[in-house]
């Protein structure tokens, strides 16, 4: 019988007639050598793949809000196209697994993915933006459903979706790109989940380089965005900009904006939340229609919204991890 190596065990005393055992049972930390379940090693390998893939990404740009229906995906699509129009190499991840829309907005639908040993070759959409979305993987018109025990799905579904998001980043052959834009679904928990994912991969990508929180001029949206901002600030994310979407109604061909909401402006929300206002994007029905139909204009044209995205793309380029910032 081996000598007990620790006094931290449970101190079991053999019962009369029972099998002889060590006087103390060693705890997990006392055991050295190979871990037979190999689970930790496998998770380590997953992280290593993520690190390797992100090593070719110039900057991670996160588009989030916490609130739904504020236009995160539309902002993502148009910013991606605006950056690509400036010559940047852009990839986009639709992290909204249950309500994907980025695939359609970027014109990815209908593309087939290529299965290669080194990863999945992403679809290429408008302006050469590469993208991955559950839109490309699940049947049209059906909700996302995972295989597994039907009862108590809430227990395992979150883990499954976190793994899927990790694979969307680590298993896709992005190649060398300047920006990987992540479109985070509604829910402040989803922001936290993504931060957890990247924060485990090492110092080189401990945080997203830039996080853009999208709001609309609404008290309710502002309150949710405030929660998201608090979470990001507590997580130590250094660069957070506020995007005020639907900041007035831009009539095609006219310069003046009509009000859409009566709530606080994006500037007011930025002040209240303590964030810097990066951009205010008016609602332009033509712009919106093009985005919905897989042809986001980005910075194209001379409309008010195009100018806004031109400025936003430039700001991102000069922000942390941006091409201009690296010069």
């Amino acid at each position, binding site marked *: *019988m*081996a*000598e*007990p*190596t620790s006094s931290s065990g449970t101190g*079991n005393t053999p019962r009369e007639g029972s*099998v*002889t*055992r*060590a006087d103390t*049972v*060693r705890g*997990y930390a006392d*055991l050295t*050598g*190979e*871990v*037979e*379940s*190999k*689970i930790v*090693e*496998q*998770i380590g*390998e*997953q992280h290593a793949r993520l690190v390797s893939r992100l090593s070719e990404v110039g900057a991670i740009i996160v588009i989030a809000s916490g609130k739904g229906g504020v236009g995160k995906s539309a902002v993502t699509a148009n910013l991606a196209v605006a950056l690509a129009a400036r010559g940047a190499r852009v990839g986009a991840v639709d992290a909204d697994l249950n309500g994907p829309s980025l695939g359609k907005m970027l014109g990815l639908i209908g593309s*087939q*993915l*290529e*299965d*290669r*040993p*080194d*990863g*999945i070759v992403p679809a290429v959409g408008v302006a050469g933006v590469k993208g991955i979305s559950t839109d*490309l*993987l*699940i*049947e*049209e018109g*059906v909700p*996302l*459903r*995972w*295989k*597994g*025990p039907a*009862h*108590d799905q809430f*227990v*395992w579904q979150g*883990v*499954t979706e976190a*793994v*899927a998001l*990790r*694979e*969307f980043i680590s*298993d*896709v052959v992005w190649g060398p790109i300047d920006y990987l834009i992540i479109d985070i679904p509604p829910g402040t928990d989803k922001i936290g989940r993504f931060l957890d994912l990247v924060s485990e991969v090492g110092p080189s990508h401990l945080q997203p380089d830039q996080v853009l929180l999208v709001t609309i001029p609404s008290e309710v949206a502002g309150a949710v965005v405030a929660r998201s901002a608090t979470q990001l600030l507590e997580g130590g994310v250094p660069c957070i900009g506020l995007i005020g979407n639907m900041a007035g109604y831009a009539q095609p061909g006219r310069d003046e904006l009509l009000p859409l909401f009566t709530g606080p402006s994006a500037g007011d929300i930025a002040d209240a939340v303590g964030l810097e206002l990066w951009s205010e994007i008016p609602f332009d029905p033509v712009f919106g229609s093009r985005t919905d139909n897989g042809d986001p204009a980005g910075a194209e044209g001379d409309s008010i919204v195009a100018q806004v995205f031109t400025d936003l793309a430039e700001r991102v380029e000069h922000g942390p991890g941006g091409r201009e910032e690296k010069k």
Partner: protein
Amino acid sequence: MKFLCIQCDEVMSFSDRDLPGDGTITALFSCGACGREMAMLTNPMETQLVTSLGVEIGGRTVPEQPLQQTRSRLDTPRDDAFVDEEATLAGDPGSSSTIPATEHEFVRIRVTWTSEATDRLAGVPKFVRGMVKRIYTEYAQEKQIEVITPDVMDRARSDLGLEGM
């Protein structure tokens, strides 16, 4: 997770895994000192919790494939999501794998598929066919099997715990 033989104070070694196909797992561990064995049994929920992490108890027998967890767990996958590999399967059944050398130590041999094996592979949903083909090919290469037959596929399924493929 570790298992300790408290009689011998030895960490038990993973020895075998069985996937009956009902969502449960039987993982066998044995003590290298006394030979005593124990079985860890999981119910479908516990199995799901572990597999949701994208890991396999006892370690991976084949390298994880791209998007493997996502693809294998989607309940309603799009059948045409991936570029069709029919041409390489049907047109050239004798084609070898195009997988580049990895960290595996075995010598990569040219692997061919019999028409029966090719037919059987064609029955796998397109969504995961490429991934499944690669797994069988790597299994054959590791075992130095030059021709993949349905029997080899059965052995691979058993050895690798691929009952779902």
